[in-house]
C-alpha cells in the first residue's frame, strides 16, 4: 500500500495502461502540460504520436475518439471540465453511445473519456456541473465516479481495458485527497458498489464526490444514536442494484446523496430502484440529498448554501429514523 493523492492515482493508471498496450492513445486540450495534473508525464514517456494536444474543438475531440476507436485504437480523450462535454455532445450521445448498436455489433468502442466534475470551488455555473445523470441516460456508455484514490486507479485501469465506452469522472473536490492504493497491478471491477462502513439503522448511499460529506454525516449520526451503513456507488453505469437493495433490505431506510441536480439525478434513479426492488424491506420514505435543480452560483457563501453537505444528510437521515437533530 502507498498513500497517494487521487490525481496521482489517475496519473499512475494512465501511465500503466499506456505502457501496457501500445495501441492506447490519448488526446485532448493541453494534455501535454496537464491542466489537472492527471496526464502529467505522458507526452514525455509516450511521445507526440500517442499523446496529442488538440485544438479547442470538443465536438471533434469526441468524434475522433469514436473514429479512432472504431478503427482499432484504444482511446483516452480528456475533456477537461465536465461542462465541456456538452460542446461535444452529439458525438457522445448520437455516435459513441449508439454506433455499436447501429452497426449490429460490428465494432467495439474502447473509449475512456476523462473529465473533472462538480462544484464547491466557486468556479461558477459553467465549470461546476455534476452531470453524470445526463450521461447515464444515454445508454451504451459506462459512467464511473470513483471516490477514493484506490478506486480511481483500479477503475480507470479497468475502464481503459474495457471495450465499452466509458466516462471516468473525477470529482473536483477529491483531486487532492489522499488514500492508500495497493502496490502493483490493481484493478477494480466496474459495476460493483463499495461498502466503506457497515451499519444497521439507515443506508447512506453516496454518489461519487459526496463520500466525504457522507462519512462525516455518519459520524454525526452515530452521536445521536443512529448507526448508518455507507454505500459508495462508485459505478453508476453499470449500477450495482444488488448491493444497494440488499443494504436497504437490512436497514429498512435509505438516504441517497448526489451532487447532481435533483431532477433525473443518479439519486432519483437509485431511489426509484429501491422503491421498486427494495420496497418489501422499506420502513420509511426514501430521502434524497441533492442539489435543488440549480446550477452553482459563484459566491462561496451562496454556493455552500445550496451544495449538499453533512448536515443535510444528517437531517434527512434523522427525519426517517425518528430522531431529533439539535
Amino acid at each position, binding site marked *: 500500500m502507498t498513500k497517494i493523492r487521487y490525481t496521482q492515482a489517475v496519473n499512475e493508471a494512465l501511465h500503466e495502461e499506456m505502457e501496457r498496450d501500445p495501441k492506447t492513445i490519448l488526446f485532448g486540450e493541453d494534455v501535454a502540460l496537464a491542466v489537472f495534473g492527471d496526464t502529467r508525464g505522458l507526452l514525455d514517456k509516450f511521445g507526440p504520436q500517442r499523446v496529442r494536444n488538440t485544438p479547442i474543438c470538443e465536438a471533434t475531440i469526441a468524434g475522433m475518439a469514436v*473514429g479512432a476507436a472504431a478503427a482499432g*485504437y484504444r482511446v483516452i480523450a480528456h475533456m477537461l471540465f465536465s461542462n465541456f462535454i456538452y460542446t461535444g455532445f452529439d458525438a457522445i450521445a448520437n455516435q459513441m453511445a449508439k454506433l*455499436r448498436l*447501429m*452497426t449490429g455489433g*460490428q*465494432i467495439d468502442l474502447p473509449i475512456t473519456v476523462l473529465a473533472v466534475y462538480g462544484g464547491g470551488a466557486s468556479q461558477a455555473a459553467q465549470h461546476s456541473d455534476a452531470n453524470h445523470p445526463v450521461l447515464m441516460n444515454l445508454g451504451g456508455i459506462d459512467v464511473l465516479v470513483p471516490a477514493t484514490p484506490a478506486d480511481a486507479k483500479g477503475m480507470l485501469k479497468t475502464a481503459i481495458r474495457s471495450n465499452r465506452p466509458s466516462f471516468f469522472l473525477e470529482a473536483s473536490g477529491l483531486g487532492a485527497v489522499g488514500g492508500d492504493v495497493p502496490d502493483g497491478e490493481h484493478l477494480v471491477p466496474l459495476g460493483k458498489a463499495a461498502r466503506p462502513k457497515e451499519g444497521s439503522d439507515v443506508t447512506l448511499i453516496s454518489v461519487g464526490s459526496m463520500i466525504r460529506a457522507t462519512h462525516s454525516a455518519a459520524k454525526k449520526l452515530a452521536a445521536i444514536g443512529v448507526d448508518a451503513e455507507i454505500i459508495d456507488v462508485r459505478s453508476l453505469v453499470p449500477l450495482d442494484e444488488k448491493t444497494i437493495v440488499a443494504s436497504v433490505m437490512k436497514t429498512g431506510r435509505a438516504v441517497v446523496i448526489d451532487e447532481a441536480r435533483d431532477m433525473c439525478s443518479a439519486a432519483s434513479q437509485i431511489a426509484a430502484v429501491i422503491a421498486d426492488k427494495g420496497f418489501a424491506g422499506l420502513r420509511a420514505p426514501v430521502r434524497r440529498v441533492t442539489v435543488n435543480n440549480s446550477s452553482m452560483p459563484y459566491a462561496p457563501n451562496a454556493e455552500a448554501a445550496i451544495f449538499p453537505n453533512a448536515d443535510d444528510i444528517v437531517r434527512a437521515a434523522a427525519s426517517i429514523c425518528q430522531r431529533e437533530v439539535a
Partner: protein
Amino acid sequence: MATPNLTQDQSEPWASGQLAMLERMLLIRHAEARLAKTAKEVGLPGGVHLSIGQEATAVGICSQLDQDDWMTSTHRGHGHFLAKGGDVNAMFAEIWGKSTGICKGMGGSMHVADFSKGIIGANGIVGGGLAIATGAALAAQLDGQGRAAVCFFGDGAANQGVFMECLNVANIWNLPAIFVCENNGLSEFTVSSTVTAGELSNRARAFDMPVSVVDGNDVRAVAQAAQEAVARCRRGEGPSYIEATTYRIHGHLEAEDMILGGGTYRTSEEVERWRKDDRDPIARFRSCLLRDGICDETLLEGMTAHAESLVDAAVAFAEEGPPADTRLAYALMGVGEEA
C-alpha cells in the same frame, strides 16, 4: 473494385477499370430505383434517402480506394456503401430490417456499415461522419500502412462547425484524410445557396488544404481528383478536399411529397434538366465508353440486365431473411434484460 488505371491507354486494365466503374454505377442506380419502387408500392420502414443522379461521385472516389481504406458516409449512403464494395444483398436485407442485414437490422437505410470493407457507416446526423473520419484518419496515420480515410458529406453539412474543426485538425496533424463534399445544391428542402456564404471550397483553402472542385457527374474527373488525394495520403502528405458538383434527382427522402403537402423548393424543369443524358452521370459515362470504343450497346445492355438481376436477387435475399433478433439491441447496448 479494381482500381482503374486512369491514364487512357486503351489497355486492358484501363478498359476493365472503366467498365468496373460503370458496373458499380449501374448497380447503385438500379438498387436505388428499386428501393424507390418498393417504398412507394409496398412501403419500407423508416426514411429512405436516395442518391440517384449522384452515382459518379461515390464511384469515382471509391474507385481509388482499397478495401483497407476507411470511409464514412451520410444519411444518403447507399451509393457510398456499394461503391466501397458493400454487398447489395446485405444492404437490402438491412433496409428490410432482417437479421441477414449488414447491421443485423439494427441500423437500417441511414446506418449501413461494413467494417470488414472499411465502411464505417452512414450517419443520421448531418455532419456526424466528419470527426469520425478524422479519427479514422488518425488511426490510419498511427498504423503507418498508407491507408486513407474518406469522408463524404453534403453541401448542407458544410455549414456545420465540426466540418471546419476537422479541416483544422486534419491539417495540423497532417492526417491522411480526404473530405469529399457532394455539392448537390440542396440541404433538405432548402436551396443551399440561400444559407451558405462564400464558396465552400474557400473554407478548405482557409485551412491550407489542397482543393479540387470537379464536375461530380463526370466519374472520370472525380476519380482523377481522388487519385491525387489518395496518393497524397499514401505518401503521408496530409489531407485533401474534393468538391464534386452534382444533383439529387429524387426527393430528399422518398416520403417527400407527403411531407411537403404541396410545398415546393425546386422546379420540375430543374429536375428534368438534370435527368437529361447530357447531365446524367450514367448516360454521360456510357457515351464516353461507347465513343472510346471500350464497349458497345450489346455489352451495355448486358451490364444493365446484370445490375437488374443483382437487384432482383438482393430483394429475394432480403425477403427471405429471418426477422431481426428482438433481443439483440440489449446485448449490443450492454444492458441486462431486467430494467
